[in-house]
């Protein structure tokens, strides 16, 4: 179905829904690279006006990626909850934006609505939101998940402790973990990206993380962010797998490029559940996403990268994850050119994830070939904090010495919690108090209960 919009005496025609969504997307390099971006600022506004007038019901009739060709589209359509959709079924995209900003959209109403929204609806409304709308609406969303602690409660901000090491040296990993714990990080997960996706190395890291967690008696979960097939192998070999990690995307093709399918993710979740390692909950999956991965795999089907990103959240929510985060600035300047584009994308991803019912965190980050710096990260971090981001990353000094990019530091987490009056997950907060961490922080000596020798650092 074609959409026509006149603006300033010019008539713009958008041949189908995916084109309309792409042309309505605020400017970013990845959509220009894909050849789907609006040619002019006025064409973009014309698309936004046309999109605002589009009834939400239209999204149930026209898929942006064909149903027959794509298992993610089938998942989205087959899982759509018409009863949950009913309260907004009469609205247009513009009407949904107004409704979301209004008083009727309480935390409870938004949680009830989530299964009734498709990713494309969420993406569409985000395209006609300013940053403050993305912040204000997301701040009303509540998503709570559990494994060994409780993630996502109001007034809380969790942090993934990311103790990566260039050669997976257990001592380097342990030292970074200890540094992070002492600065209040680790309540979301202690999660290592392995330098090499190797089964023996993965098991060694899993055993290390489990031993550190056990030795300090930390109420948190661990994860080695290996490929899902490596984690399955580790489970088979009896390794202590808390969370199974996987990078995912919003089309069958991009997932194939990652070496996964919905069936494989289902198998992985069942494997992790079979270990029954969660003490207070069974959210066992951890997913990462990021705008641009589909184009990178040439599996974007002519869609803009933000719409495809939102579709990845439909994949994620199928598996009831403990944690999901966009790695927003990791992919590079060909997808998000500068700090402005990274900032907008980070807030869009968080907004769409939350609207669709996910425990959404963001890796506030950039690479050295992007036009961005620490000032951009401070701004995005603060905006996300106000938006109620579920968790952020914690990397020693913001410098990931293995993945060669800059994320947020342990200090950044402390800053954000203090600036906004946020606290760690309650179980973790009580543990920090027991261990004497808050009282000791800033001093040069470590509390006795956190002695490095307890984890082999001596």
């Amino acid at each position, binding site marked *: 179905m074609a959409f026509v919009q006149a603006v300033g005496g010019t008539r713009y025609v958008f041949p189908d829904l995916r084109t309309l969504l792409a042309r309505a997307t605020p400017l970013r390099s990845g959509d220009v690279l894909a050849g789907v971006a609006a040619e002019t600022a006025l064409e973009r506004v014309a698309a936004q006006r046309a999109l605002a007038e589009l009834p939400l019901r239209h999204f149930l009739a026209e898929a942006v990626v064909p149903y027959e060709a794509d298992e993610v589209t089938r998942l989205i359509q087959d899982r759509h909850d018409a009863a949950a959709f009913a309260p907004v079924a009469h609205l247009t995209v513009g009407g949904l934006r107004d409704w979301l900003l209004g008083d009727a959209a309480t935390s409870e109403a938004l949680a009830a609505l989530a299964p009734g929204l498709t990713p494309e609806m969420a993406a569409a409304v985000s395209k006609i939101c300013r940053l403050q709308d993305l912040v204000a609406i997301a701040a009303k969303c509540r998503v709570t998940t559990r494994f060994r602690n409780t993630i996502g409660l109001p007034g809380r901000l969790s942090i993934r402790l990311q103790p990566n090491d260039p050669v997976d040296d257990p001592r*380097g990993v342990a*030292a970074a973990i*200890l540094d992070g714990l002492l600065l209040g990080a680790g309540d979301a997960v202690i999660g290592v990206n392995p330098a*090499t996706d190797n089964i023996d190395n993965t098991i060694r890291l899993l055993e290390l993380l489990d*031993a550190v967690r056990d030795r300090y008696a930390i109420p948190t979960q661990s994860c080695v962010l290996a490929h899902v097939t490596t984690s399955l192998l580790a489970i088979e070999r009896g390794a202590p797998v808390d969370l199974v990690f996987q990078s995912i995307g919003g089309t069958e093709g991009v997932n194939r490029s990652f070496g996964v399918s919905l069936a494989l993710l289902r198998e992985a979740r069942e494997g992790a559940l079979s270990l029954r390692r969660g003490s207070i909950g069974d959210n066992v999956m951890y997913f990462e996403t990021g705008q641009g991965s589909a184009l990178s795999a040439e599996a974007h089907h002519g869609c803009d990268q933000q719409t495809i990103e939102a579709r990845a959240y439909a994949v994620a929510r199928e598996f009831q994850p403990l944690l999901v985060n966009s790695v927003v600035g990791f992919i590079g*300047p*060909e997808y998000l050119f500068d700090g402005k584009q990274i900032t907008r994308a980070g807030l869009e991803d968080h907004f769409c994830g939350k609207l669709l019912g996910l425990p959404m965190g963001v890796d506030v980050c950039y690479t*050295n070939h992007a036009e961005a710096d620490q000032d951009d990260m401070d701004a995005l971090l603060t905006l996300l904090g106000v938006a109620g981001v579920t968790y952020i990353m914690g990397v020693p000094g913001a410098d990931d010495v293995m993945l060669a990019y800059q994320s947020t530091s342990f200090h950044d987490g402390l800053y954000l919690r203090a600036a906004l009056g946020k606290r760690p997950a309650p179980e973790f907060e009580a543990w920090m108090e027991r261990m004497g961490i808050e009282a000791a922080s800033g001093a040069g000596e*470590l509390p006795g209960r956190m002695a490095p020798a307890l984890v082999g650092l001596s």
Partner: protein
Amino acid sequence: MTVPPAPPGGDGAGPPTPAAAPARWTELRRFTAARVALGRVGNGLPTAAHLDFQEAHARARDAVHSGLDHAALEADLAPLGLPLARVASQAPDRRAYLLRPDLGRRLREADRARLPAAPGAFLFVVADGLCATGVQAQGPAVIAAALPLLRGLGVEVAPIIIADQARVALGDDIGGAMGAAIVAMLIGERPGLTALDSLGLYLTYAPRRGRTDAERNCISNIRPGGLSPGQAAEKLAWLTNAAMQLGETGVALKDEQPTAFLLPPA
């Protein structure tokens, strides 16, 4: 390293306090190059640590725009006794390279016809990637260490191709054009703050344009303080042997090589 066994008689509220003198936070720096034990002013970084970071970022920004020194690279590769050929991707300059990765994955058409045929051979491509520093410094040493191991596997090695403005997948396009059995793409990794000199190695069986990331194996962080050229060569030979037996690379080829050598001596 192993975590020592838990001391007996824990009180259930955390481990007992050792009697030894309290450890200093700064001792953690002995175990990692990561920015640990930076200190804290309020919740912020002390001034010196903050400015250290700013300097490292400035260096990395400059490194992104560094290119291969061809004369030096060819001189370093010459003793290996293999013919050399030079190609470029379709990205005309650095800005285009950064904004158009699709161009960086495709061989310039004028170069395609000039490539030597090497049917069934093992192909090394040495490429600038996002930062040429690491491949310039370590590429020749990795190939030198790998050649005897590959020949020990009975593998014939093709002429070495040097590529400018290259993305990882350019190796597949080059390998496909030459008819190579396997391509090892040695490419500069994007510069980090701590490592400006990191080399990545990507291995593709039956290379051709259109191969996906899931069809490659990767050895990353080849640099001083990371994997040495010798360790990278051993892993490359192990993966090559496994790929030839399996008839593919990628997620189907699990890296199950024992990894004790990855760790520095305890």
